């Protein structure tokens, strides 16, 4: 049974989450402050953390930073803050995903499942990843659509590989730029827009009704081939 740590200072929401997560066969630990969360995390080693950003005492982002020192459990951030900059800050502090209050519980559960699937050690990547008619061959470093190789530039291929290796995970602009172009390009998000547009075209995906690459405006991109419905 997977275990989840819920860090939320609002008691009713904590209780609602506890019942809702248990009903899906997840073990639930709870904490109402960042300090308690760090203690529980160290003792119980949960598989995933759901973390409210506005906590009394040390806030969510600070909790996240301290937690990342000793734990690589996936963290889904709960936030009532609307601004992309807040979400980017949380992702940069080490969050894997975020959900905005008031959230849809099914959406949250889909994110939880996705995060649990890709958590470290859950599985090594198979040499060939499949998403419908698309195959990404990590060994031969090529992509095939309906069995026919697609011509991709090296940058496009690098980006595609990062995306498919992190199914469902929200990858921030900065993260993608750093991984594909190197640290000096971490603010050039125009590059990203151009390359993602080309990649979508070659993969037959569409920005308006995405099945493969989802844009989170102002924040980053997400590979949704496994479960497009969960991110509608």
């Amino acid at each position: 049974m997977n275990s989840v740590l819920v860090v939320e200072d609002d008691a009713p929401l904590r209780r609602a989450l506890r019942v809702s997560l248990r009903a899906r066969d997840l073990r639930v630990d709870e904490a109402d402050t960042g300090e308690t969360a760090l203690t529980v995390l160290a003792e119980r080693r949960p598989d995933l953390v759901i973390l409210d950003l506005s906590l009394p005492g040390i806030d969510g982002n600070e909790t996240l930073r301290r937690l990342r020192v000793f734990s690589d459990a996936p963290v889904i951030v709960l936030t009532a803050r609307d601004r992309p900059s807040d979400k980017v800050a949380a992702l940069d502090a080490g969050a894997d995903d975020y959900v905005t209050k008031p959230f849809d519980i099914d959406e949250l559960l889909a994110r939880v499942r996705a995060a649990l699937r890709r958590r470290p050690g859950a599985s090594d990547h198979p040499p060939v990843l499949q998403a419908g008619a698309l195959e990404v061959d990590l060994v031969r470093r090529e992509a095939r659509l309906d069995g026919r190789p697609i011509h991709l530039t090296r940058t496009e291929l690098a980006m595609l590989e990062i995306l498919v290796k992190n199914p469902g995970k929200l990858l921030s602009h900065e993260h993608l730029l750093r991984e594909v172009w190197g640290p000096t390009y971490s603010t050039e998000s125009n590059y990203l827009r151009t390359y993602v547009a080309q990649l979508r075209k070659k993969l037959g995906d569409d920005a308006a009704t995405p099945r493969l690459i989802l844009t989170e405006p102002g924040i980053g991109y997400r590979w949704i081939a496994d479960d497009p419905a969960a991110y509608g």
Partner: protein
Amino acid sequence: MKFSTIARYVSALALMVAATAATRLAGVDLTVAAMVLLIAVLFAALLGPGPGALAAIAGYFLYDYYYTPPVHHFDFQHGTNIIAGVAFFVAAAIIGWVVTTITRLRARESKRAREAQLRLELLNRIDAGEEPDQLARHTALAITQLFDVRRCIVHLGEDLGAAPDTEPGPVDGLTTFAAGQVTVQIAEPRERLSGGDRELLEALVVTLDGSLEQARLRLESEQATIALQLSRSRAGLVSAVSHNLRTPLASIRAAAATLRAPDAQLDADDRGELLAIMADESERLERMVIKTLDLSRIRAGGLELEPQTVDVGDLVAAAVRRIRPLGCHDAVHLDVDPELEPVTLDIALMEDVLLNLLENALRFSPQGASITVDAASSNDSFEIRVSDEGPGVPPDERERIFEEFVRGGSRSDTPGTGLGLAIVRAHVAVHGGSVWVEDAPGGGARFVVHLPRSDPA
């Protein structure tokens, strides 16, 4: 001619006579006498150019009469005598010129100093926000004194001040100094203004205009700052409201979705808990909405007081009855002196104040603890105090907790709205009173509402 002027001429003459008499008595020769008389002329010149000249003439005659041969005769032809006379005149002229210059410079400096002082005073008045018509009047008065003018009219923009206070007579023939929004018109004194005075007046007008402009800009920037703060505080309220409504909404949505989900394995207890969450959180949302509306109504100034006279005990009891639905009615311990004079206030608002304070106290009270409400009164004010046995409020949070959506570290299962104390403060402020929190005698927090006694309306 003024008396002091006559006295100076007489003194000059007396000085010369005395000097001559002294030389005669001492029996000195004519060289020494010339020096003594020359020195006397120098002293006389200190009295002014006129007395100096008189002394020189007197010295010339006295010297000629008593010392140049033929003695006791006036003999204007004698060479020695002519040299002595010229020396007397030159000495008197030099000293006279020096003295006049010094006197004139000193007068100008003193006028400059007075003008600088006036300028400073005007600046202070502008800074203090003095009304322009007052300022104009004061300036006009000061100018008449400083420059010895008979009449002065000062225009500051639209406003006008005149000195001395006369009917606004014809302004033809007045000399005008103007800069920007400042115009000064003066009736020149009989001896027309000197060039230095003119410069001083022009400088004064320019300074006055500059200072007024600065004051206007400062006022504008202050108003802009206030407007900005107000809009920030409104934006803050909007963002805090949306932020704070989301959490109970999230709980309700999560509970409802789980109840409906086909894949959720729920037992009867789980269902009961989810339903309870939905009910409680809907109520909390409702309270938040109502309180937010209250607060924005107070902010908008749309709140009219309806003062009525009431006994403090009745007021407190009514508020206690209203928290009965929230539970723990038994925990409230009333300690209101029945001898207290009745008070006049808006009953509905003050009940709200007490209700919010009681709710707050309940939220922070441990199980089975009691809450004490007591009241005290003096001639011109009275206080209602709500004390709990909770953890108290740390000194550095005592001001902050009255702000919107700032909640203390409540661990209760029924979180507050974060609005109660903001409403308390706003309602009390409408009554002209104040509210604060301090340590209760037995630990815990004591909220004190301090209100002025107003006459029954």
